[in-house]
């Protein structure tokens, strides 16, 4: 599996994954209280295409069908996809940076930092006056501060120890979660809004959120992709990386900022959803090897598929009630975390 000899293969599998993602999107748009066929969903989506839409679609679906798919389900499905991609992608970056399979925005407390930032922006009216971009900025600020705080705490005697890093992350995670709970108690009238931050949910998805998340997250992932080779080299250890021409401190800071940004944007639109960033990159690494040029883009697509399916389960399993999607991902992720914890530290 020498990377340069398999580029074409990796590309083919990637296209297959993108097609699967599209099918999953169609499928998720078609199921729910009002059951439609996947063909209906496809028709409605195609119809919305500018210029060619009307030529492609002869049979006009009913207005209710259109509004269910286009106004309710599509934004929700797409938002779950973008957030899943962001969490898995940033998880892959964190795991590579910290050389630890348990690193992830949720475990490191970064998600909680972003959520606290988001909750504060909501309480102080930043979200209302500046709009969702304000929430996003505050979430990013919270994530960034948490990342550097955890990183500094984990830095025992100049070198970053992975164990102390994870412990610091967990401690900070508890602290920030407690802070969010406090905010909830002092702002009872907004309790429901704040709860959304602690238990991730896509039930308030809008096209506005999709646009914000898609643009910022994709831009972040695109920039990070150009550091994939550097991440590979960082896996050799910092000293080796330096000898291979990497400006280690600078590259680490850039990558931490980028992955915090991506994770924060995901939290800003959906709240804290754990374990996606843990399971997906790890599974991809087992299947495709450790090269980040493959690992990161693959994690993004598989993360999107995973979270769309998880959210579809969340809204259909006990319909008309809804299970918070974080519960579904935690049910799948927590045992996986324990398995990693128990496994002898081998390859990440």
């Amino acid at each position: 599996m020498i990377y340069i000899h398999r580029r074409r293969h990796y590309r083919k599998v990637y296209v297959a994954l993108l097609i699967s993602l599209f099918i999953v999107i169609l499928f998720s748009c078609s199921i729910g209280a009002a059951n439609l066929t996947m063909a209906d969903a496809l028709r409605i989506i195609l119809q919305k295409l500018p210029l060619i839409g009307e030529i492609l679609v002869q049979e006009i679906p009913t207005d209710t069908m259109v509004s269910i798919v286009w106004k309710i389900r599509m934004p929700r499905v797409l938002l779950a996809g973008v957030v899943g991609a962001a969490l898995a992608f940033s998880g892959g970056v964190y795991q590579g940076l910290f050389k630890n399979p348990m690193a992830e925005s949720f475990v490191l407390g970064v998600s909680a930092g972003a959520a606290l930032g988001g909750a504060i922006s909501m309480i102080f009216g930043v979200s209302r006056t500046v709009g969702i971009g304000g929430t996003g900025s505050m979430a990013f600020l919270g994530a960034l501060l948490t990342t550097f705080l955890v990183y500094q705490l984990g830095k025992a005697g100049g070198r970053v120890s992975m164990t102390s890093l994870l412990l610091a992350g967990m401690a900070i995670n508890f602290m920030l979660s407690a802070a969010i709970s406090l905010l909830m108690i002092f702002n009872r009238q907004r309790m429901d809004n704040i709860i959304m931050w602690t238990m991730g949910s896509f039930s308030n998805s809008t096209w506005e959120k999709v646009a914000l998340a898609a643009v910022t997250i994709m831009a972040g992932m695109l920039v990070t992709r150009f550091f994939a080779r550097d991440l590979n080299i960082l896996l050799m250890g910092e000293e080796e990386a330096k000898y291979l021409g990497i400006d280690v401190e600078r590259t680490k800071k850039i990558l931490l900022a980028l992955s915090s940004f991506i994770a924060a944007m995901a939290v800003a639109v959906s709240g804290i959803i754990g374990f996606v960033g843990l399971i997906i990159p790890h599974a991809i690494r087992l299947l495709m090897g450790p090269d980040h040029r493959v690992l990161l883009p693959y994690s993004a697509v598989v993360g999107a598929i995973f979270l769309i399916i998880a959210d579809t389960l969340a809204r259909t399993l006990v319909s008309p009630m809804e299970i918070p999607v974080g519960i579904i991902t935690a049910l799948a992720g927590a045992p996986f975390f324990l398995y990693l914890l128990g496994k002898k530290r081998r390859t990440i």
Partner: protein
Amino acid sequence: MSIKNNPGFSIEVKGLNWRIGDAEILKDIRLQLDKNSFVGIIGPNGSGKTTLLRNISTWYKPHGGTVLIHGRDVLSFTSRALAHEMAFVTQNANIEFEFTAMDIVLMGRSPYIPRFGSETKEDIEKTEEVMWLTNTWEFRDRSVTTLSAGEMQRVMIARALVQDTPILLMDEPISNLDINHQIQIMDLIKGYQRKRGVTVVMVLHDLNIAAQYCQELVLLDGGRIFCWGEPESVLTADNIRAIYGIDVHIMDNPLSGYPMIIPISTLWDHRPL
């Protein structure tokens, strides 16, 4: 590579001091290493051999004095520019990730690949050439986690060689290897050094290997240079007794004529030599 043609020393160390807390690890090290030389750094454990290499490589920053390569302060290079000038084979590199041998060797081309680019045909050809030279081509698509110590060491050396640098630093490249692999690797490095005219600075434990392969030896003791020169002048019975505290018998190697060191066991003292 205009720097390759510059006059002056390949590496010059001027009054280097380095310490941890109050403990002085290196004291007033002064060295001038010519281009195209093969230099061994020897000395007992804790004498500062690896620390010296790491000060040259800028992993450690000197607390006093400077290190120049081709007449320029090493600290003035960016990491990337420095990776065009020197490659470093560190001790006990262990990679826990399932990269293939070729993926690892290709990383040596990284200083030449622009951020928005990827490996060119030239990078791949160079890598292939070096992998044949180092006998690593046969297991190019095996995961490095499955390689033996000798195979892994050849991969790490291959990675340093594809960096195509005028200076090679190596920290005990042959410890923990079987005798056949030791000779194989030393021959490989020596052959490459002669052919390409690069400067090799190598920390070695084995004094006999050092005597056979190095043009110059630097003997460190307690963070100071005890002596420095040709193997014949450094590896004397008196020096070794002073530094290592054992008696040795030194004879000419019957095959190569270089000094050969035979440690004298205290159990043998009744036997005539």
